[in-house]
């Protein structure tokens, strides 16, 4: 009896050894045959390209004194048309389901913490254009459970990866500026002229301004800046010689809800 147990253990040990050695040999032979295969040429590589505009922290200065309704409309049209933002009409146009990346609002709504008792007449009625602030300390990024919203460390843009968004809308609750919109329904039927160069979204994802990251990559300024007739200035906030920093050094500018500590990258000259 004792003898047979001993034999069993011995056999089992040799079998394990044999299987292990065999699989190792197979693995080795597969490895060598792969290395020999004619996989010529260098491995594929990615790069930024020469045309890309780069900065440490992209920022924007909005000169509200130069804004009027027609410029605001022009900027919104420029942005929404190239980014395939749906403009629902008729029945589907419910006010709480509108999708917007950039839109005009009033002074007291843009700056609720700026308590001005006797606001100048022209400031009170002038439109203020608002968009995602691309905060330096973005609360939406911390709220996102899938990291679909993230801050690009290279240039400070708060971006969305629509592939990853699960539509939980935590980011919308976290954003104090209401810069995010949710696709309650398939946006495609509400897009008039689809821009084939930019994807649309699907039902159930959140979207917002991306500071035209896809345009910066080919050396173009954001679409709203180009359409703004000089009301918007775009540049690197970390570069003291940039247009935005020069403007900020000259003019007094405020940011939206500074007391929340999100450090917006969009400044307003009022």
């Amino acid at each position, binding site marked *: 009896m004792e003898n047979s147990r001993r034999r069993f253990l011995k056999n089992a040990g040799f079998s394990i050894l044999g299987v292990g050695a065999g699989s190792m040999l197979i693995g080795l032979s597969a490895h060598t045959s792969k290395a020999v295969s004619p996989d010529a040429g260098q491995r594929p590589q990615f790069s930024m390209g020469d045309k890309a505009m780069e900065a440490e922290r992209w920022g924007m200065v909005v000169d509200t004194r130069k804004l009027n309704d027609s410029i605001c409309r022009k900027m919104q049209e420029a942005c929404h048309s190239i980014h395939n933002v749906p403009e629902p009409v008729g029945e589907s146009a419910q006010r709480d389901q509108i999708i917007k990346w950039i839109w005009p609002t009033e002074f007291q709504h843009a700056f609720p913490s700026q308590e001005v008792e006797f606001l100048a007449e022209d400031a009170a009625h002038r439109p203020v254009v608002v968009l995602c602030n691309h905060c330096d300390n973005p609360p939406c990024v911390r709220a996102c459970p899938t990291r679909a919203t993230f801050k690009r460390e290279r240039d400070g843009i708060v*971006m969305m990866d629509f592939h990853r968004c699960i539509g939980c809308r935590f980011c919308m609750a976290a954003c104090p500026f209401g810069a995010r919109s949710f696709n309650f329904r398939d946006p495609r039927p509400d897009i008039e002229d689809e821009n084939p160069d930019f994807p649309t979204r699907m039902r159930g994802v959140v979207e917002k301004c991306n500071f035209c990251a896809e345009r910066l990559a080919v050396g173009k300024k954001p679409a709203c800046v180009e359409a703004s007739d000089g009301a918007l200035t775009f540049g690197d906030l970390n570069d003291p010689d940039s247009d935005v920093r020069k403007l900020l050094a000259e003019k007094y500018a405020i940011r939206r809800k500074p007391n929340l500590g999100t450090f917006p990258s969009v400044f307003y000259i009022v």
Partner: protein
Amino acid sequence: MNDKNKIITGLVIFFLVVLFPFWFNLIFGAADASTAPEPELTEKAEKAETCVAETEHMRTEHMQILDQWRDTVVRDGQRIYVAENGKEYDPSLSNTCMDCHSNKEKFCDRCHNYASVNPYCWDCHTYPEETE
């Protein structure tokens, strides 16, 4: 072994039932199901001769390449792809892939339908409408 006949009959019936999908397919489904469809190339794709990688590689790995493109473009912001053959490409499904392979129905869908995979690319990305 008194029930030899019963047992053998039972076994035959059992295996016939268990192997139903195989023999059914062999006899009745051979014409359409067992031959894989060939994706059709457009004139432009044929003229280009090579895709961003060799055909065999593209056939088996195009989904991994697309995933890698997606992540690198969206998350790292790198929008130039230098392929193995040294050529530069814009890593974009709608603008690069669909530029040559503009026949989605005959290029993408054929195999995807055959393999019963439903990639959700087209929920958001656009493809050229087939004009014919």
